[in-house]
């Protein structure tokens, strides 16, 4: 038996909306049979969603995998590891992911209240700032290895654009008209 302490602790981070549709899913171990193809991944998300529909989705065991999750606002966040792993380490990862999500949703211009103590977590805000979400996740996990969990350190490693976000939204709006007209 391979006793080598496992450093590839995180197998996936999955963020779904309240209907079980993917917002952002990072799969780190494509050798796992659950994550081999896009179809497997979608299937796994479905299983995950169905299991957590009725519960508060804090914990699930799915085959050989261990899932810690959190339901807030209109999204669900899951951190997935192996059953042989340390669930509290996964919980730490989840906590960091959650505070990054909060940070994104509380940014000025993200169309939600600016009161930091009472942030509305919403799929809308996450999609609005999708690239920042991807960047945060990139700083938390590197191919399954926990890279950094200190939220302030992570925030400092992702520089925000100088231009105000409002400008970006203007820009986005231009794009929308472009897309809708082209359709």
């Amino acid at each position: 038996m391979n006793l080598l302490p496992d450093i590839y602790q995180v197998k996936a981070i999955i963020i779904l909306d309240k209907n079980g549709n993917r917002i952002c899913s990072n799969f780190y171990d494509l050798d796992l049979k659950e994550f081999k193809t896009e179809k497997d991944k979608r299937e796994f998300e479905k299983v995950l969603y169905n299991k957590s529909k009725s519960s508060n989705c804090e914990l699930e065991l799915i085959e050989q995998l261990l899932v810690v999750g959190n339901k807030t606002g209109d999204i669900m966040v899951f951190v997935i590891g192996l059953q042989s792993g340390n669930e509290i380490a996964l919980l730490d990862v989840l906590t960091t992911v959650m505070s990054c999500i909060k940070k994104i949703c509380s940014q000025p211009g993200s169309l939600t209240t600016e009161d930091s103590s009472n942030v509305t977590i919403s799929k809308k805000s996450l999609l609005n700032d999708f690239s920042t979400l991807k960047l945060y996740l990139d700083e938390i996990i590197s191919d399954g290895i926990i890279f950094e969990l200190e939220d302030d350190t992570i925030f400092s490693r992702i520089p925000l654009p100088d231009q105000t976000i409002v400008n970006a939204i203007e820009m986005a709006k231009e794009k929308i008209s472009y897309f809708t007209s082209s359709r």
Partner: protein
Amino acid sequence: MNKFGEKKDDDSESNSSELMLINLDKGQVIQEKRAFNETPVQPRKCSLVISQFLFLLARGDSFTPNEATDIFFAATKLFQSKDIPLRRLMYLLLKEFSTISKDAIIVISSLTKDVIHKIELYRANAIRILCKITDSSILPQLERYFKQAIVDKDPHVSSAALVSSIHLLKVSPEVVKRWANEVQESISNKSNMVQYHALALLHRIKQHDRLAVRKLVNSLIKNSVKSPYAQAYLIRCAVEVIEETHTEDRVYFEYIESCLRSKNEMVAYEAARSICSLKGATPKEITSAVGILQMFLCSTKSTLRFAAVRTLNKLAQTNPTAVIPCNLDMENLISDSNRSIATLAITTLLQVGNESNVDRLIKQIANFLGDINDEFKIVVVKAITNLSTKFPKKFRHLITFLNKILRDEGSLQLKQSTLDAILYVVNTIPDSKEIALSELCEFIEDCEFPDLSVQILNLLGQEGPLTNTPNKYIRYIYNRVLLDSGIIRAAAVTSIAKFGLLYEPMKEKIMILLKRCLLDEDDEVRDRATLYLSLFKEDNKRVLERVLIDDLPVPTQNLQRSLEAYLAQDDTTDPFDIGTVSTVLEQTQSPTISGKLSQTNQLGASSSPTNASTPGLSAAESVNQDLAKLAQIPQFATYGRVLKSTELVELTESESEYVVSCVKHIYKENIVFQFNCTNTLDEQRLDQVQVKMVPSNPKSMKNLGFMAIDQLKCNDPQSCYVSIGYNIQQAGYPIVSFTNTLKFKAVDVDPSTGEADDSGFDDQYPLERLEIVPSDFIQKTYTSNFKEEWEKLPDPPKPTCFQLLGVKTLKAATQEIISTLGMAPLDKTEQVPDKSQKHQILLSGKSIHTGTLIYAQARIKPDASGSNTDVALVVKSSDEDLIDFVYSAFI
């Protein structure tokens, strides 16, 4: 294209930017990438395009290598931009596309510029991409950048370099190993994460050198590593050292125990679960670990409660008493809002429970059964089954409970485990038979899984006729013939026939029922009915018994494999002999009634798929490979055909430096010993490897020669051979044992370069003894009528009596006798009924040389002291030499 298209209707509040992403078109975004080419670069515009690419990837859109290459190359234009946020996004985009794009190597020069850039963010991210696009041929040129980055003062850069190096270990371990000094230096970095990554990398670099790992762990546990993640990793390293070296040194245990007091919950938990899993932990250590877990049980965080109860559940399997202090806390968890926690709490309580509270617990589980998923139900089923051994009086509750699970909705896997559990209970508690059978009869009335129906029909046929009221089952079984599909009807017909055979008064009625099946539309059903009916008419009990009752003497998988091998060979003039089929069941996958529960694949047991599958390939296949190799060796070609190859015997501990095991190949007048040798030291190569065998009785055989292994490199198993000659007519059977030594010339090798040092030295390594035993010359045979054959042979003067020293249980004694004699146990005498005081084993076999049959009868019982077993053995055969040889194995 828009997979998410339907969703927008539900989200009435969804704003336009979300829609924009959802309806994103890949082709259009690829066009948009021209923004990267504009000068001056417009950061806002480019960021938006990158963001759209990231979304496409996240959505699961696939890019062809050509598309990916185009995007990748376009993005490299952004190296010109000085806008830091845009650069950060560019790095992410490059990283995501580096694995799909072709020729990603082209950006190496841009990246190496960034690796030494003054901005930390550039350095860290550039190195993370570098590790993705290098291969082992380029890495040596980049070495200095990595080394420099590893010792970078900035934690971001250092962590990035260390983690990248861990990834690179998969690509080019030799190069990464050369950075050990730099990594060592970074362990003292103040950053928690750098410490963790450095420790993990260093440990991985040294992982093949056990002494170095031990040194590393020793030095770090004294220096009190501060980073929690490094501590947790170090705990696992300490566990590894303890398990691999079986060290007596308590320093590792002390370190783990000290971590129990950590303020960090993750570290404390890692320490607690490590102690619970270690065999060598003292009661005191376990008590403190359980104390920590007990605190977690009352935590407000459900993950902590789950972690604690999961660990306690595992501990309860091996050490139930240690868990008792937590009983009260676990009782509270039964009502936990999280069903997973509640299930684990209950199953743990069941394991440590006593007779008085079992009823209450079972009732409590039944109440929330509807809320938990199948995996947990299986756990509950297993826990319940274990109870049947502990509290046999409670069988009524157990069967009712199991039956409820069987009837409820559920997967096949769940139902199979439940049925196995019921079969187990029926087997262990005979009183439960009637209630279980009638419950199962009800169940097959509307069972949706044919597999289960067939198993149940089989059980009904086996057990039903022996109950007080066989009549009542027939109706249920015959209903299946009327209502179900072919495979079930066939099983039902067989089951009915068994009633006719085993319960005489029903024979006439059974024949009427069988007659009705003669016109069935399914071939199999008709065939079975016709066969049984004609046998009943002839009143041919003996054949009926063979057809209906006698099990196949060998496991079906083995028979199938042997038949396939037989058909695959060119020469099929010799008829297939069932005696050559191995009776060793290689994997207990079949739903056999007993023995299933010994595999405690309980929840939480880390069942990694890799280590479960490897031993599966064993026996038959490896023997075939061995024989193929043997056939190619000219020295042995004159020996003729291999009459028998024995099972593998280990001659060393499996963890020693050199691992050796032996297979004996028996020829007509020769024995070839095949020694499978593995060298586990990567700094050594062994030349001219051979095994020197010193026989205890040199006269009975002559040494013919050996074949050495030229070079035995690390982890490349090879075989060397020794052959001896014997002659039964002249010298009798070779009753002999051997003292064995592995002899070789050890040559030092530099593990990193593979270069060998010229000067080797002769060395040797002691191996376990080997014996020639009767099983080497006897093949299993099966007879359905032992008594008759036994009576035919002349009686020996009197049984030979002896003791098996140190064999305490009847089961162990039975095992030993069967394996020493190599004969086939008959009439299920290999199974010792529980609690029996004495036992009789019936065996049959034949000589591999002459085919002469040999039978044996062994009566065993424990001696007065209880620590040895008395055996009275009678062996009958027409071959006197063979009889003497068999006795010689014990006296």
